């Protein structure tokens, strides 16, 4: 039973990793999160504000 749970979690995580990786890299990738673009802009702004760049 424990083996099944661990293996299921592993499979779910591998699929999640591959799907996000493919969606990010592939030109066929789509917007998963509705406000992805806004978040990205906020992160860039934060990095500049903190003086990391």
């Amino acid at each position, binding site marked *: 039973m424990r*083996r*099944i749970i661990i*293996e*299921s979690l*592993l*499979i*779910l995580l*591998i*699929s*999640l990793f*591959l*799907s*996000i990786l*493919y*969606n990010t890299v592939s030109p*066929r*990738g*789509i*917007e*998963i*999160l*509705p406000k992805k673009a806004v978040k990205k802009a906020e992160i860039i702004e934060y990095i500049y504000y903190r003086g990391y760049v």
Partner: protein
Amino acid sequence: MAAKLSFIFRIVIGGVFLLAGLAKISDPVRFILTLREFRLFPEMIIPFTAVYLPWLEFVLGISIFLGIMHRTSALMLAGLNMLFVIAIGSVIFRGIVVDCGCFGLLADMLKLPDMADWKSIVRNLLFTLMCIGIFIIKKTVISLEGYIKKQ
């Protein structure tokens, strides 16, 4: 005999879900439209589901095909197939005519029937039975897991 039967089920199920996953991975936008037509999921989770579900099918298919963690994968795939049966059943019950989206682009290329109807329910139930068969029969032949254990 049982081990050979499990092997045949593995090849069939693994092959089908590997191809079905790949067909959907190659065209996520089409899968989004299909999921929308089902009118089952909230709009927020549809894009994520359209990206994640084909990869889950692909990983489960490949692991069953190669015979690595195949019993767990078969159990998960049986659950997934039952969800498909419920989803298609609800569409039929509500009288919505829609593509089942099971094989994505592959259905167009091979001109396979891909409507959400009783045939697709029977097909999914058959796949579920095969998955349960793979899970119940503990022994199998020609598997990557068996090969690794031997080394």
